């Protein structure tokens, strides 16, 4: 198999995913085009040589519909020879786009792939592509469908995380993200989104609340008690995990990932691809895996997929210097740390989606880049990137520096 190298990565800042968010005025396709432009311009990429553009997008409808990477390639001025495709594995789409691109390169089909993702949640909205998973009773019922927040609360209940536990995690995420921004850890990878005149629309993650403390979070009401109790989902949780008597509702807007807009791109290539680029690789895709997991817990897939990936590679937890797990909900990360006994100083060291937000299809590519930057900054070697996924799945990728 051909080695797969990471040559570069970029991301947009994350805009608040509401109508008053700074990126709301930017169409989905333009967000995607921005990262395609950046990855080209920073690397002198001859886009005629791009074998594929693969982007994750969870709700590829309306202005994100109809194969948005190909559409973005037109707006970004890529060669018409560069093809594009959009994929979805819900929240891991951005990482799966990277893995998909890596697989094509490893197989020898491609030499240069731009992989990443895009989601304008302010413009398209959550769940706008519909779907049998939650709508069709023939699927919803056997899938133990629940809103993800109820699943997160089920995880907290089952594994014993209190409101204080999840809030404390959220406070720390905010602190770490603020610290990383203050010290310029993201500067090399975040490309400001500018308008047609070159005026900056957004250059910082705007969802962050750096001053957040326990007292402030304590004011927030649990978000998922209503659907849990009125929508019948608590019964679904109990019937899937009958050792619980009821759900302890602990998650709220302050300890769950933020709804934001954003895009990311990772430039992948073979050794030959590197030669075309004339650039030195920054890292290597060492291995990756996918798995299906308990659908009611839904968000514990990272535990299962990490076990699978370590077993396949013959690696130990101790071989991993840094872990990057998408902060979909605080309990997801707490459960992962509990399952593997991972200390907090080795995981999400620069904060995560609780502070900065989770632009669904883009996040996987973003956090892969974040942890590669951090490996370089700390001069460490190996990181594991993973995300929990709707319907009960997990995706994980191990990267290492070269």
């Amino acid at each position: 198999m051909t080695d797969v190298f990471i040559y570069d990565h970029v991301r947009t800042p994350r805009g608040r995913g509401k109508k008053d968010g700074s990126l709301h005025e930017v169409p989905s396709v333009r967000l995607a085009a921005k990262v395609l432009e950046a990855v080209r311009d920073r690397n002198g990429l001859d886009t005629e040589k791009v074998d594929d553009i693969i982007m994750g997008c969870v709700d590829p409808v309306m202005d994100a519909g109809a194969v948005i990477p190909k559409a973005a390639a037109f707006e970004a001025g890529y060669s018409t020879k560069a093809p594009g495709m959009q994929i979805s594995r819900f929240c891991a789409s951005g990482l799966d786009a990277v893995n998909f691109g890596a697989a094509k390169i490893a197989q020898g089909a491609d030499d240069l792939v731009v992989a990443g993702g895009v989601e304008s949640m302010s413009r398209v909205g959550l769940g706008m592509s519909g779907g049998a998973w939650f709508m069709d009773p023939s699927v919803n019922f056997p899938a133990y469908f629940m809103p993800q927040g109820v699943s997160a609360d089920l995880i907290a209940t089952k594994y014993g995380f209190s409101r204080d536990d999840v809030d404390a995690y959220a406070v720390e995420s905010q602190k770490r993200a603020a610290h990383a921004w203050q010290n310029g850890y993201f500067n090399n990878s975040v490309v400001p989104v500018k308008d047609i005149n070159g005026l900056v629309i957004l250059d910082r993650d705007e969802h962050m609340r750096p001053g957040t403390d326990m007292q402030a979070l304590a004011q927030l009401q649990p978000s998922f008690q209503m659907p849990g109790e009125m929508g019948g989902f608590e019964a679904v949780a109990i019937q899937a995990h009958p050792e619980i008597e009821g759900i302890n509702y602990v998650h709220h807007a302050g300890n769950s990932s933020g709804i934001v807009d954003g895009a990311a791109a990772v430039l992948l290539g073979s050794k030959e691809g590197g030669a075309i680029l004339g650039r030195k690789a920054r890292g290597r895709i060492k291995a990756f895996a996918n798995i299906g997991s308990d659908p009611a817990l839904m968000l514990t897939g990272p535990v299962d997929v990490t076990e699978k990936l370590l077993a396949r590679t013959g690696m130990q937890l101790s071989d991993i210097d840094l872990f990057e797990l998408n902060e979909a909900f605080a309990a997801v990360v707490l459960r992962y740390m509990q399952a593997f006994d991972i200390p907090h100083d080795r995981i999400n060291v620069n904060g995560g989606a609780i502070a900065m937000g989770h632009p669904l299809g883009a996040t996987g590519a973003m956090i892969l880049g974040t942890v590669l930057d951090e490996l370089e900054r700390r001069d460490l070697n190996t990181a594991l990137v993973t995300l929990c996924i709707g319907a009960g799945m997990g995706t994980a990728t191990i990267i290492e520096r070269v």
Partner: protein
Amino acid sequence: MSAYKNFTIETDADGIALVTWDMPDKSMNVFTVEVMDELDKIIDQVVADGAIKGAVITSGKSSFSGGADLSMIKASFDLLKDAQAADPATAVQKLFETTGRMTWLFRKLETSGKPWVSAINGTCMGGAFEMSLACHGRVASNAKSVKIALPEVKVGIFPGAGGTQRVPRLANAQDALQMMTTGSSLTGARAKAMNLVHQVVEPDQLIPAAKQMIKDGLKPVQPWDEKGFKAPGGGIWTPASAQLWPAAPAILRRETAGNYPGALAILKCVYEGLQVPFETGLRIEQRYFTHILQTTEAFSMIRSLFISMQELGKGARRPAGIPKAEFRKVAVVGAGFMGASIAYVTAAAGIPVVLIDRDQEAADKGKTHSEGLVTGAIGKGRMSREDGERLLSLITPTPDYAALADADLVIEAVFEDRTVKKEVTEKIEAVLREDAIFASNTSTLPITGLARNSKRPDQFIGIHFFSPVEKMMLVEVILGKETGDKALATALDYVAAIKKTPIVVNDTRGFYVNRCVFRYMAEAYDMLIEGVPAAMIENAAKMAGMPVGPLSLNDEVAVDLSYKVFKAAIADLGEKAVDPRHMELVTTLVDGEGRLGRKAGKGFYDYPPKPAKKKLWPGLKDLYPQQKPEDVDIQVLKQRLLVTIALEAARTMEEGIVTDPREADVGSILGFGFAPYTGGTLSYIDGMGAKAFVALCEKLAARYGSHFQPTPLLKDMAAKGETFYGRFAPEAKKAA
């Protein structure tokens, strides 16, 4: 002269045909094959007759119709069985065609080109309402007797003659799902609010209003056959639907634990049907209906919850040749909670009651109970003030035994103590008419023993009510050794008069229902002792289809009652009668912790003040070393809870306590809510087959104790491939 057996047709001067459905020899109209054949011809006739402009269909009876004759559906089970025997390849196709008969007959009606109006004069259920939905106009009388429902789900099936397609094309999807998945009844007004009927009128205006709709030019085209039709709310892919559909299966799961395929099929039919043209939707419904008819749940539920319940209610066990008892007066002795409630249900049936206790105050207190119930019912609009007053006027509280001298039936409901009962029996018989029947409402003491206190044991019988009497539909009629046929006939006539369902059982400690219930709670004790987390026990029970978890149930009946029952059993039968570990558990709760049950605010659960919910007592975890949840198989817990009850039911059959499988089944569902989707305790066994059941028992016995050992009867049935309904064939007995 009418050409039809079940219908008459009169065409008026305006050219409107009044089709009156009035089946001879039936108190209620139902759909049979013959009725469908005739309706088919009537549609042809209306279409062919140029003088007829349109048709109004109504009923000649006080009710409109009860819907499909479920015996006809039961016959389709036989058809399937025969067809499968003849040619398995085409059997399902034949069933599919049979089940589509009503669907396409109603479709023919609504596309006949002439306007049809259904004039709903009374109760209109199931297939009859589906026919009404196929009519272009629907007018309902505002009489209180008008109840509209699609109740099929209650017997394991679902509205399969267009109901799942027409209701959500008229009403909003949430209301449609609610109506069909619960099978609940609508008043005419509610049906109109849901857009299911066009008009609600005074009873005498019903036919004129229906005819007027036609005269006003009612279009013989249904909304869904118009171009550009959209279901209310816009169909499936709308923001409102995105709220409804993800939650609908969750709510169904909460209510049914997924044990009712018929209920889930309703969701599927509506979801899939609203995305396609109407006739395609009908075909989808027909496919699901064909599928659901083949489930064990549908077969067992129709048999127990419809056919058997109806047969028992009509006195299937009543001895022949004894004139129907008239109840001019019933006496209830003992005005405690049970006695007071028995007086209430008796008066509610229009029977005068004397309610006797040791002094006027105690007797009056018993009547207060009825006053409370009446006030509550009036407050909720379920009873008129006049009816309430009439009911209360029928109850006469008194300490004077002379008042029962002319009673036709006496029901003794005094304290469960042999000495007290003996004394009261003698006092009653001192004044009671020679030919009156004496019934004891004992729940624990064998009737044969109590009958020894009587001068006329052949007129002595047990009538065992369940609490709360107003709600519980079951009554156990207990035969003592010497109980005679007249006592049995009178008891059954009384139970029929108060509109409850009787089962007749022979005398034994705990009779039938309580024997089963004690097994249920005992299995939960075993599980607790094994260290199964209490929440898993309770959840397993609910997931198995039980209405109340065994620990919760134990709290309701009181933990100290279990304690007393254990002590009594040990006193009567010796130490071995009770598992010492169970005695220890109950003793710890009652003596050690004062956890007497719900009445004490604490038992297996803690009961904080409302609105806080009850929670399992955390201390249960400390009583026994706890197993890890992942080491406990929830499926096995579910099996244990059902199997231990079903085995006890099988034992009662083997011992001759219960003699008719219908009674074991119906008694288990009405008495303690035994997983209704199984059709009851014995249908549960028959449904999986005696052989599989015996194998399951043996597996459980090896692991969880000898109380799971299959009995000789079951082993014999397994060897011979028999069922309870085959071996103890109720039909044969009924004929005899």
